[in-house]
C-alpha cells in the first residue's frame, strides 16, 4: 500500500497584511504537487535554494498546514486523522542544522526520549531510559552519551542524536531535510550509510531533501526535481542520472563541479544566465523560462504541464519528445 501520497498539494506562508487588522495574504511556495511513496523506498528531492524543498517536507508531515490539495497517510487524509499528535511517532523528520535541532538545556537521553511521553505515555521511567539508550546505540553512540548535553557534541554526533530521536517511536517514514549539508564530507558518508542501514533494518521510507546530486544518487530510488515550487521532472534514479530530460535538471547536473581541475577548466557553459524569478511575482509560463537556454515565446506564455515522457518518467517541458 502507498505509505504517503500528496495530491495537488499547495503550500503557502501567511504574511501579514499592510495594517494590524487587515487580512493576511498568502505567499505561495509549493504549487500543485503530487507524489507517492511506498514503504521502504527513498524519494530524493533536489532543487536549488528557495525552491520549496524544505517547505514541502514540512507540509508532508503537516507541520505547516497546506493551502490546497491533500496529503494521504496510508490512504487516510491527514487532516482527518484523529489524534494526529500520537500518530506522529510514525512520521518523523531530521534537520539540516543538527546542533540547532537539539535543545541546549536538555540531556541527550531526555531529548531522545521526550517524544515517547506523547507516543507511549504508559512506559515507566526505566523503560523510557532503556529505549533512549537503545536508540542512541542504534545510531552508533555509546550509552555514556545519555547524560551529555548537546554542546559537548560534534556536528556528526548531533545529527546521530537527531536520528535517534526520530527512530525512537519506530517510524515508517523519515523526512530528511538536508541532513548532511552542514557536515564534513567524511561525516556525510557515515550519516548517509547510517540512514541506509536503518532503512533496511526498520523498513523505513525516506524523503531525502538535498541539493547535493551525488548524495541523492547514492541513497534514492526515485528522484524528483523541483524548481520554484513546482516539480519539473520525476524519474527513477538510474534513468535520471543516465540522461536528465528537463533543461533545468541538465543545468543542475552541469553545475556539479568536476573533481579533475584540468577538465574543470575546459568546461563550457556551466553557469546559467538570467534571473531567478521572484516568488512574489511568479512567471506566467514555464518557471524555468527566464533562465532556460532553449526557451521560446511559447515557454514564456504557456506553462508546460507535467506529463509522462517515458515509462515511469515525468517532465514538464514543451520540447521533450515522447
Amino acid at each position, binding site marked *: 500500500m502507498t505509505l504517503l501520497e500528496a495530491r495537488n498539494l499547495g503550500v503557502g506562508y*501567511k504574511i*501579514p497584511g499592510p495594517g494590524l487588522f487587515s487580512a493576511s495574504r498568502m505567499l505561495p511556495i509549493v504549487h500543485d504537487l503530487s507524489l507517492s511513496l511506498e514503504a521502504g523506498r527513498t524519494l530524493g528531492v533536489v532543487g536549488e535554494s528557495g525552491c520549496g524543498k524544505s517547505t514541502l517536507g514540512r507540509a508532508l*508531515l503537516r507541520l505547516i498546514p497546506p493551502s490546497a490539495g491533500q496529503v494521504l497517510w496510508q490512504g487516510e487524509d491527514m487532516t482527518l486523522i484523529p489524534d494526529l499528535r500520537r500518530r506522529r511517532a510514525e512520521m518523523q523528520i531530521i534537520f539540516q542544522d543538527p546542533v540547532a535541532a*537539539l535543545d541546549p538545556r536538555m540531556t541527550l537521553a531526555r531529548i531522545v526520549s521526550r*517524544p515517547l511521553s506523547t507516543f507511549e505515555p504508559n512506559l515507566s521511567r526505566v523503560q523510557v531510559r532503556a529505549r533512549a539508550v537503545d536508540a542512541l546505540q542504534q545510531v552508533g553512540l555509546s550509552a555514556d*552519551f545519555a547524560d551529555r548535553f548537546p554542546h559537548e557534541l560534534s556536528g556528526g554526533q548531533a545529527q546521530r542524536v537527531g536520528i535517534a530521536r526520530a527512530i525512537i517511536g519506530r517510524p515508517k517514514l523519515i523526512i530528511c531535510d538536508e541532513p548532511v549539508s552542514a557536515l564534513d564530507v567524511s561525516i556525510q558518508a*557515515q550519516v548517509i*550509510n547510517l540512514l541506509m542501514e536503518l532503512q533496511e533494518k526498520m523498513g523505513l521510507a525516506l524523503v531525502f531533501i538535498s541539493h547535493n546530486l551525488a548524495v541523492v544518487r547514492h541513497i534514492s530510488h526515485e528522484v524528483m526535481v523541483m524548481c520554484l515550487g513546482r516539480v519539473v521532472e520525476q524519474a527513477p534514479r538510474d534513468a535520471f542520472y543516465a540522461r536528465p530530460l528537463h533543461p533545468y535538471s541538465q543545468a543542475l547536473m552541469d553545475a556539479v563541479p568536476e573533481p579533475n581541475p584540468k577538465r574543470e577548466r575546459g568546461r563550457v557553459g556551466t553557469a546559467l544566465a538570467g534571473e531567478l524569478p521572484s516568488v512574489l511575482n511568479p512567471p506566467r509560463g514555464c518557471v524555468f523560462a527566464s533562465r532556460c537556454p532553449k526557451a521560446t515565446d511559447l515557454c514564456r506564455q504557456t506553462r508546460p504541464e507535467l506529463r509522462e515522457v517515458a515509462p515511469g518518467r515525468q517532465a514538464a517541458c514543451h520540447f521533450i519528445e515522447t
Partner: protein
Amino acid sequence: MSVDLTLTEAAPPRSASTLQLQFRRFRSNRLAMLSVGLLALIVLACFFGPYAFPFTGEDADFDFISAPMDLWSPHPFGTDEYGRDLLVRVLEGGQVSLTIGFLGALVAGVIGVLYGAVAGYAGGRADGLMMRLVEILYGFPYVILVILLSLLFGGGNLALFAAIVFTLWLTPAVIVRAQAQSLARREFVEAARAGGMTGWQIVVEHIVPNCISVVIVYGSLLVPEVILSESFLSFLGIGIKEPQASWGNLIASGTSAMDSDLRLLLLPGTLLALVLLCLNFIADGLRDAFDPNDR
C-alpha cells in the same frame, strides 16, 4: 565510502551542563559572592533579629522617648519620638520591604515570562495584540494607577502589592518575548512539534527554560526596583501605613526629623542602600556569568 558502524563512538570526558558552568563562573566572582553573603546576613537579621528583644517595634517605652544612640542601653540605636525602639522597627520594616521586594519580583517575573513566552511563540496576530496591550499599559501613569488601585482594594498592602506587580511585569514580558521569538524559529522547536508536543508544552518545556538566563539576570534587577518603588510609595504615604514599619515610611519619618536627629534617617537609609548595592552587584555578577558573548 564504507564505514564500520558497528563500532560505537565512546563519549568524551564528562563535563557540566551550561547552567552548572554558569553558576561556577558566578561563584568565582568575589564581589558578587560577598554581596550574596551580606544580603543573606541582612535578611537573617531582619527576620530573626527582632526576637532577640523583649519588645516589638510597636511597643512604646515611655522612659526612653527620643533616646539617643547608646549601644549599652536597652535601646542600642535609640528610640523615636513615641519611644519605639528604632533598631527593632528598622528590622521589622526590613521584613516588609524584603518580602514585598522578592515576592513582587517573583510574581511580576512569572507573569511577565509566561506572557512574553506565549506571545513570542504564538507570533502573528496574537503576538501583535498581546504586545499592543503591553504598550498601552506602559503608557499608564504609575502614581495615578497606584491611587486607583488603592481605591479599588481599599488601600493597604494588597493594593500596594498589586500596583507594583501590575507595572513591573511589563518589562520582563517584552524581554522574554524577543527571546522566545528567536527560539520559536529554532529547529528543536520544530522537532518538538514533530514529536507531538502541544504548543503549551513547548512553551513550558523548551521556550521558558531557554530564556532562564535572561530572566535570572533581569529578575535580580527587578528585586531592587520593587523595593525602591515600595519605599517610594510609602514615602509618599500611599504604601505601607503607620504603625506598621517599612523602610520607605521609616525613611519618610526620618527625613522630617532630619534637622534634629539624623540617626532616624541614617539607620533605615543605610540598610536600604546596602541591600540595593548588594542586589546590583549580584545582578552584575549574574549577567557576566550568563552573557554568551563572554564565553
